[in-house]
């Protein structure tokens, strides 16, 4: 069975949700601990949302220097699929696995909403199960989710097709080019602010036109990694 690690940092909040999402696509979730130097031989890694280390200093900054992140960086360089969600995305930028950074929402407040996204790039480890240009709805919840990068970096990301998810209808946090998620050059490392792990189970996801809380668009993010691992 494909094994996907979920790292728990002090202050991680959505680690249980990420494990549930992995279970629901038929993979085995593996608990990993920030203080260890061991990835337990997993086939992919998820850095979950939350407020690791209380988001002191900067969001994700301290976590990016925790013991297990050395292993994550090495493994990512070797091609291991790594997904950073929200605080995990912030860690990936702090660890320089992804370019740019996340700053306080332009309107200054925390926001939780059902967010429409366009999947801009399907040639990544985490989006291969989508159609290019497909629109999905997953929950978004952050206080510091505004994606920023210098103009050259943004131009390069756009040119190289490394903008993976883009906000549709509303840019909820003032992200440059409406960027919701990006990938590294190889496409094995993806970070995004919205929370696909909160749209995986009918009854507990975002509303859809068909029924209350029935949105499960996030499932395919995890299924993509599972199918990628099986294909290897």
């Amino acid at each position, binding site marked *: 069975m494909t094994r996907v690690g979920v790292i728990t940092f002090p202050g991680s909040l959505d680690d249980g949700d990420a494990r549930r999402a992995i279970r629901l696509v038929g993979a085995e979730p593996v608990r990993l601990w920030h203080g260890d130097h061991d990835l337990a031989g997993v086939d992919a890694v998820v850095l979950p949302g939350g407020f690791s*280390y209380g*988001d002191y200093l900067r969001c994700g900054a301290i976590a990016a220097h925790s013991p297990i992140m050395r292993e994550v960086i090495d493994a990512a360089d070797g091609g291991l699929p790594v997904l950073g969600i929200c605080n995990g995305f912030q860690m990936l930028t702090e660890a320089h696995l992804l370019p740019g950074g996340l700053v306080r929402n332009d309107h200054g407040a925390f926001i939780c909403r059902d967010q429409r996204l366009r999947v801009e790039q399907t040639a990544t480890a985490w989006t291969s199960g989508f159609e290019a240009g497909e629109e999905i709805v997953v929950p978004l*919840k952050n206080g510091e989710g505004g994606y920023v990068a210098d103009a050259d970096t943004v131009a390069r990301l756009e040119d190289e097709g490394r903008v993976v998810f883009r906000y549709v209808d509303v*840019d909820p946090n003032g992200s440059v080019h409406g960027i919701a998620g990006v990938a590294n050059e190889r496409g094995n490392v993806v970070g995004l602010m919205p929370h696909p792990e909160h749209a995986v189970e009918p009854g*507990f996801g975002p509303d859809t036109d068909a029924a209350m809380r029935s949105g499960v668009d996030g499932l395919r993010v995890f299924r993509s990694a599972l199918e990628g691992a099986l294909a290897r």
Partner: protein
Amino acid sequence: MSAETAATTTPVIDSVQRAGETPDRVQPYEALGLTDDEYARIREILGRRPTSGELAMYSVMWSEHCSYKSSKKYLRRFGEKVTDRMREHLMVGMGQNAGVVDIGRGWAVTFKVESHNHPSYVEPFQGAATGVGGIVRDIISMGARPVAVMDQLRFGALGDPDTSRVVHGVVSGISFYGNCLGLPNIGGETVFDPVYQGNPLVNALCLGVLRHEDLHLANARGAGNKVVLFGARTGGDGIGGASILASDTFSAGGPTKRPAVQVGDPFAEKVLIECCLELFAGDLVEAIQDLGAAGISCATSELAANGDGGMRVDLDAVLLRDPTLTAEEILMSESQERMMAVVTPDKLAGFLAVTERWEVETSVLGEVTDTGRLEITWRGETIVDVDPTTVAVDGPVYDRPVARPAGLDALQADSAAALPRPESGDELRRTVLALIGSPNLADVGWITDQYDRYVLGNTALAFPDDAGMIRVDEESGLGVAIATDANGRYCQLDPRQGAQLALAEAYRNVAVTGAVPLAVTDCLNFGAPTNPEVMWQLAEAVEGLSDACLALEVPVTGGNVSLYNQTGSQAIHPTPVVGVLGVIDDVARRIPSGWQDEGLNLYLLGETALELDGSAWAQVAHGHLGGRPPAVRLDAERALAGLLAAAAEEGLLSAAHDLAEGGLAATLAEGVLRFGVGARVWLDGIVDRDGVDAATALFSESTARVLVAVPREEDVKFNGLCAGRGVPALRIGVTDAASGTLEVQDRFEIPVEELRRTSRATLPQALGHGATSAGS
């Protein structure tokens, strides 16, 4: 070095021995909030004057906030008016940190609502944040995992500049703390009324989940067991908060009280939650008590008083943030994110290994004894030697004078029935829009969009549905629903009836989700108990609430009383917030509050009378408050709840939404706005059957009413169910997706988009655009 520094500032330690030698020393008991009589009683209990440490302890523990000295006489009612059936599901009742209710399949839940009103006015952000932190720690100390929070907020007039200050602070405080803790915020209440201008109410509710065998009570038992303090270090924040802040009235020109508000660190609390749960899971603790109001004074005296012996504690072992703190300050500090545990000596090493893994600072303060005394030493001297029950249990109880408010007869005689009501379609339409855009009925997304409702992945219902619902058991889908309500305007007109109406509404809000109401928590927010008219309101409200709990067979499991909510002589409206918890076998069968499908039949359940006194209509259209609140119909509420549970069980309902403030008009608008699907409605059936005019049909707040949407194929079955259970059902409309309007036939039409715009404009206009600038 710290000890020496502090020693020079407090050269003489006021030990028990010294207290005996200096009986006539003048003590500042009045500044600490104690009366002459209370001080005399302390001297009588001890047979000497108290040490300054003992005085600090008694003063905080005998404060109104900690001792319930004015309300205790009445709170007993909740324990007296219970049947065996009400006790059936009750694993822990009132008196512990929170009540515990058996919900079946080996699962239990614990829930409690608590106030943090005064700190939230002084320092809204930290006051509200630490309010969440405090109630969460109460839930943990029962052995439960906290799984959701809700908040009940009452602010001054929307549009007043100070209201904006308080709202911004309170909402961002709750958002900051709750979101960082990883607890979904699943609902609550927001009310704006000038009576709360100088006294906002910030109540917070937490829900916890546990297996039956994980239940723990906060008792210090077993001589020789270790008493351990862990979590954040003890600092100078919140000193005297309990005695000085919570039991004092705000008055103009007084000294600023900001230093007495605690400062919260949700990251420390999140780590503490995980640490405590690991300690419970590893069977490494006998008991855990949270440190809230009155800090170490409260934790040591309550643990010892609830135990079977005594306790000896050395304050020198307390880890301090500020080494210059005196013993009295250490005893009174309300520093947040601290817990006290009782641990058997053989498990201490295992306990310390867990706290070390979570990097939680821990120190062993002392041990449980068999002396029956609480002894506290500092710098080698005994500074406290008391019977802990005299501190924590047998505090003063007052039978304060009560008096029916002088102006109440005149107020009750001033019925809203005499006010002119809209008649034409245009007038009705304008009135509906005025109501939908009024502060208390408008969309509160400005607030709720700042809260995480998704974390933990078990949220089955959240705002704007009538109740929050959480899945407890992932395998079976077993879950609980919670709703809270209070209507201060009704309570001002008649506190007895008003409290019952709060219960009835919360009960109905749980029932419309398909859950079966099971238990109650309450937070009684009132003015100063020294005012006989306020005491009368409190007495009436408790009497009424306990009667209604008995009639509906839902026991009160715990809660909180907050008094002195007044500025000068102006008390708030009596505001008993009532929370009802219900159980549902499978959350997959829950019912939404709005409709999504075309062509569903809309039925109004229950009957409508001319009941506009205290209504939202009277407030919005006429700025009027007078008369008698709507009749309480508890038998009808029970029948309705039974019907809804049965209909949910059989899957007969597509939507159900209760009628309350704003009557049928508000319920229709909210049902349409939930998913943006319109409806066509006719009022003639109500007008003919109930003998009321169109305005009354739309705006009356008669109770025991619910609007449901029923698929056509279930029509016959549903009508049969209503007839069989004696619930009046009247078909008053159909859902209509294509029209894009809410049409009240022959009277008016409002496009869904106009309803939405009206509802969503109000809060951002008054409070600034914040998060909702994102549109949504």
